[in-house]
């Protein structure tokens, strides 16, 4: 079971929910922090990093002695990473996604690919939750494209029995790279107009990707009606609610998983996990 915890809006509680689910699962969990631009699950899980791998993507280098400046490479690059000028070819490797299209398109075999470092993938057992192994990616400073690193992080997580993916916020490429090919997505939102607005975007995105999903209302309050109305009219399942509890925020701010300290959060997450497993068609653990 690969469960993605995602949200349209940042700061709705993805990490709180994902960590709390990993805690209440009890059985071995591989926790994948896909937010490679700002990984934070390590603050709560305090892992002992046992593996670290440098990740590269292949970027083109041009042999000017063979290049005829025909422009085929620049024309095929949908990322605009190559400028083909009448007397030379310029490669902007920071825009390159490493697809290799330019090397295939080049009629004179002037393009070869060389590795360009983008970040690291690390993993190790948590010293806080003994059923959890953390896998995380850290993108290098100045590298603007995270999807290739996110894919490497997911590869490293492998096909373990239960994998929880803590996704980057938003609905753009990093989020899509993280949720792709998971079995189920839990969309975390909050009962505010901002939460609702970004939930709508995330729901549209997941429908487009044809992924099964349900909604988790974090900081649940008397304002939940805002989210409920949207879910009812769009036929979206509400999987559960995490109560709005100051103690949860205080625990989080100290780097402590809220479910470890706040009974109401733990109980809500136990119910939530059972509901997710039922919705995803897995047997309750």
């Amino acid at each position: 079971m690969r469960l993605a915890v995602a949200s349209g809006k940042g700061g709705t509680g993805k990490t709180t929910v994902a960590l709390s689910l990993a805690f209440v699962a009890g059985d071995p969990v591989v926790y994948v922090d896909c937010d490679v631009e700002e990984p934070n699950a390590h603050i709560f899980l305090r892992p002992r990093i046992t593996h670290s791998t440098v990740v590269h993507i292949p970027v083109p280098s041009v042999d000017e002695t063979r290049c005829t400046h025909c422009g085929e490479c620049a024309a095929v690059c949908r990322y605009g990473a190559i400028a083909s000028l009448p007397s030379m070819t310029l490669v902007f490797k920071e825009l390159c996604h490493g697809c290799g299209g330019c090397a295939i398109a080049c009629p004179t075999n002037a393009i070869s690919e060389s590795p360009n470092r983008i970040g690291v993938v690390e993993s190790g057992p948590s010293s806080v939750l003994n059923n959890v192994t953390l896998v995380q990616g850290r993108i290098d400073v100045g590298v603007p494209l995270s999807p290739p690193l996110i894919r490497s992080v997911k590869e490293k997580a492998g096909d373990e029995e239960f994998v929880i993916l803590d996704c980057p916020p938003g609905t753009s490429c990093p989020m899509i790279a993280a949720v792709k090919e998971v079995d189920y997505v839990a969309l975390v939102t909050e009962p505010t107009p901002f939460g609702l607005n970004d939930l709508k975007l995330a729901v549209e995105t997941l429908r487009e990707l044809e992924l099964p999903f349900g909604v988790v209302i974090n900081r649940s309050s008397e304002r939940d009606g805002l989210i409920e109305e949207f879910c009812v009219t769009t036929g979206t399942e509400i999987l559960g609610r995490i109560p709005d509890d100051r103690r949860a925020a205080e625990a989080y701010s100290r780097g402590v998983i809220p479910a470890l300290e706040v009974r109401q959060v733990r109980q809500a997450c136990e119910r939530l996990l059972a509901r997710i497993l039922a919705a995803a068609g897995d047997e309750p653990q």
Partner: protein
Amino acid sequence: MKIAITATGTTPESPLDARFGRAAYFLVFDPETNTWETVENTQNLNAAQGAGIQSAQNVIRSGARFVITGGHCGPKAFEVLRVAGVNVYVSAAPSVAEALRLFQAGELEWVEAPDVEGHWA
């Protein structure tokens, strides 16, 4: 030597486009023949990334040796233009034709460095 000017329309009376990479058009003036050529830039206007690089490439391929922008030129576009030996000028003129006149009168300011951050920085 040809001069490419960012434009919001296809005639010399059009206002300049304030952006280089995502300019709607480039109007390229050839002083030898006294004629204008229109280079469409719609593709880059809508590009997710790399607009400046591709716009610079297209301007260079049009044969222009000078660029006049209505406001800005980002770092990657600037780099491509610099490598190709194309000088960038900026103008607040109300039309492309007026910008050309000021350029030919030597009244435009040469831009020595990109004046805005890249969107990926």
